[in-house]
């Protein structure tokens, strides 16, 4: 090899790593990832997606869970009474906790709710508005809050197999059921790959030049990285899918689409038990009770 003008002189002056400003023990040190870290978010998402925590809905028949979800998810839309909504919200919160939705979802939910409350109050105060407008806001907040809590409780309790079986049992198209379970399978892979790509950007991209005012530089950097990560992520996913599509063909997926025997086998294990019936009856009763109480005391919060 001939002499390499730019490569060879490795000892040529080059920016040394800059340990100086931060090497003092008092400087900001990197944590070991026990707190709120990407790793934790990743695991938490997996725990949620795969229903690993158990909870009162985890052992029910998936169709019963979907039924429960419909009952509890529709009820809040049928009323404008703040009493009923408050009751439903409390019940939904109880259900979500009992379904063990986990700290990540709960935290995000609380953050969203609180953020919205703050901005609505600020808006009302700023515009010198009528405080009675708050009542309308509270109604819609309670409604949305109850529905989101119920949704979280239901989907945290359904692992991919149960969800796709339930969809299949309810005569949803086979592709939808498969899409759900395949999506779940891809999630961990995509999360890992996204992590690697972001790491690549961190290591090889232009270094951060400070956080900027209110961290705008950091925010911009993260946003740019996320957008740039999209392209490699999609391309890699597309490459993977090529094999998957062929494999589906060889494993009889298209065959099953026009043959009912597979569906029957797949759903044979589903049984509506006593617990499932009790769950549905109790949910309906509780919702009805909430409406009755709301009719009796319409003005508790109003």
């Amino acid at each position, binding site marked *: *090899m001939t002499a*390499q*003008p*730019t*490569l*060879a002189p490795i000892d040529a002056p080059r*920016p040394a*790593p*800059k*340990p100086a400003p*931060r*090497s003092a023990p008092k400087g900001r*040190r*990197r*944590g070991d990832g026990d707190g709120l870290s990407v*790793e934790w978010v990743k*695991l938490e998402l*997996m*725990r949620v997606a*795969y229903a*690993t925590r158990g909870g009162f809905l985890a052992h029910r028949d998936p169709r019963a869970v979907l039924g429960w979800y419909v009952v509890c998810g529709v009820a809040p839309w049928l009323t404008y009474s703040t009493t009923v909504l408050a009751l439903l919200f409390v019940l939904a919160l109880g259900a979500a906790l009992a379904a063990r939705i986990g700290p990540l979802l709960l935290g995000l939910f609380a953050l969203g709710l609180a953020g919205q409350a703050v901005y609505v109050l600020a808006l009302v105060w700023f515009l010198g508005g009528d405080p009675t407008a708050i009542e309308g806001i509270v109604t819609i907040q309670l409604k949305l809050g109850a529905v989101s809590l119920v949704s979280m409780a239901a989907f945290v309790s359904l692992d*991919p*197999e149960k969800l796709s079986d339930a969809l299949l049992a309810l005569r949803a198209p086979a592709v939808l059921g498969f899409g759900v*379970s395949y999506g779940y*399978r891809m999630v*961990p*892979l995509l999360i890992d*790959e996204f992590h*690697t*790509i972001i*790491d690549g950007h961190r*290591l*090889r*991209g*232009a*270094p*951060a030049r400070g956080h900027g005012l209110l961290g705008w530089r950091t925010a911009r950097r993260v946003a740019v990285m996320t957008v740039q*990560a999209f392209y*490699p992520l999609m*391309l*890699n996913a597309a*490459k*993977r*899918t*090529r*094999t*998957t599509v062929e494999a589906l*063909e*060889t*494993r*009889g*997926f298209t*065959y*099953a689409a026009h043959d*009912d*025997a*597979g569906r*029957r*086998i*797949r759903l044979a294990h589903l049984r509506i038990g006593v617990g499932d019936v009790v769950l549905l009856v109790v949910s309906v009763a509780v919702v009805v009770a909430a409406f009755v109480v709301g009719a009796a005391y319409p003005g508790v919060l109003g």
Partner: protein
Amino acid sequence: MAPPTAAVEVRGLTFRYPGAAHDTLRGVDLRIEAGDFVAVVGGNGSGKTTLCKAFNGLVPHFWSGDLTGTVLVDGRDTADLSVAELSHHVGYVYQDFGNQLVRPTVRDDVAFAPVNFGLADWRERTDEALEALGITAIADRFTWQLSGGQQHLTALAGALALRPSVLVVDEPVAEVDPARAAEIYERLAWLNRTLGTTVVVIEHHAELVARYARSVVLMADGAPAWHLPVAEALARTDDLAAADIPAPQVTAVARAFAPTGPVPLTVPQTVRWLEEREVGPRVAGRPGGEAPEVEVGAGARPGGEVASVPDEPRVVAHLEGVGHGYRAVSGPRTEVLTGIDLTLREGERVALVGSNGAGKSTLLTLLAGLAVPRAGVVRVDGTDTRDVSAAELADTVCYLCQRPEEMFLQDSVRADVAMHPAGRRVAGTTELVEEVLERMQLGDVAHRDGRLLSGGQQRRATLAVGLAMRPRLLLLDEPTSSLDLRSRDDVIAMLTALAEHIRCTVVATHDMHLVAEWADRVIVLDGGRVLADATPAELFARPDLLERARLVPPQVTQLGLALGLDPVPLCVPDLLRRLTPRTPTTAGAPA
């Protein structure tokens, strides 16, 4: 002798992919007997995979190109059968088998095909397939939690659940450690023996072909050059070399003494073969000679402490009492590394070996500063990795991850190589990039997207990315996995050529050829601890250590050990130099 019907019979098969300019298969005539164990070998682009996809009807039912000729499977014409029907005859396991798994859990995935076909005995078939591959214990795990080897067995079980008479496996051992590769092949051999399944493997590793296959098909330019019993096939070393399939090392040794005639296929056979021809160690051998003492345990290497002796090379990285672990979705944290003390010095070429899950990749991520250790201290170039961000550390350390496509963040190789220097506004970035591209022989493909290159080109491109970062410490995770042997030798040569630019290189690998030919220091990890820290020759002379760390040394060192050579030879020329015919009449002579 031959059973009445062939498992697969191909007559005059020619196939062209839609839109392609050339035929991928040109007039293939091939007969695979029922119960055979066939290895299909051949260079990249010789049509191996396309041929195998013709067995299960993906060609032409899924890939509808121009096809002439016929393919008979179990005596039935594939043109008359759908892919779904053919899957009961031919099971197919892909090279990227992970993408073949479509259901969340192992059991569910294995049951997928029988359930789709509505087979009443799907449960028995599933259990049977799980049992046959010895994965009943992991049946309820999620597929994304499995190691590569377990995923492969799951994919195999999924194909087996349909009880096919032919099983096609495309490069089964590309990404697993050598011991696991042998395990997968043992399973295939067992299926072949006990169930009578015809096994067809596409394989680069001549050593595995020699050990397990019964016949070999050499594909060249879209047609089989020949189909021969394994011993005859491997004796045709010139044909194999022309197709980028270097002969097994033992065969190469034998060929050096006898340019024609039969060759041995395994190490014990070679020992006998050499004895028969009265070839032995040049210097009176020292059979049973004592293996040099390998210092076992952490930090036992002389100078394990920070440089105090003046003539010791500078320390590049230093680890002290390092421990690390991960939390899984459920259960307690698993410790991956415990109490690691290591010092890496300038000029060292370090190979990090150990079975899957021994902590190799974790150690690399700690050195790269992508993670900080839970216990102990990692210092790189004198800097505690806790004190600087990973991005700052990237000026000193470069980490090339295992899957090269994850290293491509831009839409051309050139942009990827330029990313780091340009981002840091290094003066003369353009010249640097051009030079690196030229040096890595990437000039022709620099404008292309890295993901669309061949495996060997991708590795070269990632090495170029690393070189343009001008690191003091270069970390590579499995740089030679899933490469054919020619590309692998390329990568090893590139690594050797890099030595003048990079102070210290650490490679995590399963590839013992890479260890033997490139490394000057081997660190063996086992269960998160340093089991040994030695030179390759010292390590390969210690069967006990090798077995504990599930390492399989290259054939040439096994042979050297069996012949009582001390120190063990690391490459074929080294062994040949030390062997000599005891009688001068033997034909041929070593170099």
